[in-house]
């Protein structure tokens, strides 16, 4: 791509099921991994549920795609950020999440977002 590395941030704001945004956002991220850009993922609002351990979708007959988040490391996507306020509002802690993340306050996330070249919000 000519050596130009940009900072891409993918902001995941929605619950994993009920709408297709989370799944199709993950598909974008997996493609993005092939472009050698600086990639980070943010989980805010109901988006934090995307990383919740123990997802079971049998009852709604929808594919459980949560194991894919564990595969991200293999794609060299290691920068995952979760908003502390969103976690707390939902009674969750870092231990409830299926991958290692960095928990940041909304203020810290704002600062991180400002440093990005491209912010894609799903």
């Amino acid at each position, binding site marked *: *791509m000519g050596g*130009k590395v*940009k900072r*891409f941030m993918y902001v995941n704001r929605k619950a994993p099921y009920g709408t*297709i*945004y989370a799944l*199709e956002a993950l*598909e*974008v991220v997996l*493609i*993005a991994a*092939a*472009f050698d*850009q600086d990639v980070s993922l943010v989980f805010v609002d109901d988006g934090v549920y995307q990383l919740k351990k123990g997802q079971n979708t049998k009852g709604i007959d929808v594919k459980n795609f949560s194991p894919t988040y564990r595969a991200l490391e293999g794609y060299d996507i290691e920068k995952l950020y979760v908003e502390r306020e969103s976690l707390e509002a939902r009674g969750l802690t870092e231990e409830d999440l299926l991958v290692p993340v960095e928990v940041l306050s909304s203020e810290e996330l704002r600062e991180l977002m400002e440093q990005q*070249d*491209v*912010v*894609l*919000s*799903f």
Partner: protein
Amino acid sequence: MKFGILVNEGPYQHQAADTAYQFCKAALAKGHRIHRVFFYHDGVHNASKLTEPPQDDRHIVNRWIKLAEEHDIDLVVCVAAGLRRGLVEENLAPRFRISGLGQLIESGIQADRLVVFGD
């Protein structure tokens, strides 16, 4: 400035498709360029040639086509999102093309700003 546009919502169902179009028109009128409009999620329905709104309503698909013709804009529909929703080559409106998500990432790299329209 060179803009990349991402449309994540279907036409008629959601304001985002209209707002994206109005944004493009306004940006072009100000002398900016639109590098590419990428249609994802239900946004792929913006590209269906089967679209037939009532005559007294705006024709969202034809509007995109006209804009692309007048300003030579690349209109790209995501193949995976399209297939999932039955949007394939044979019901694709003119000026649109089907390609992969890589086109979205490339747009993010090439454009000065990538603007997302959706929920």
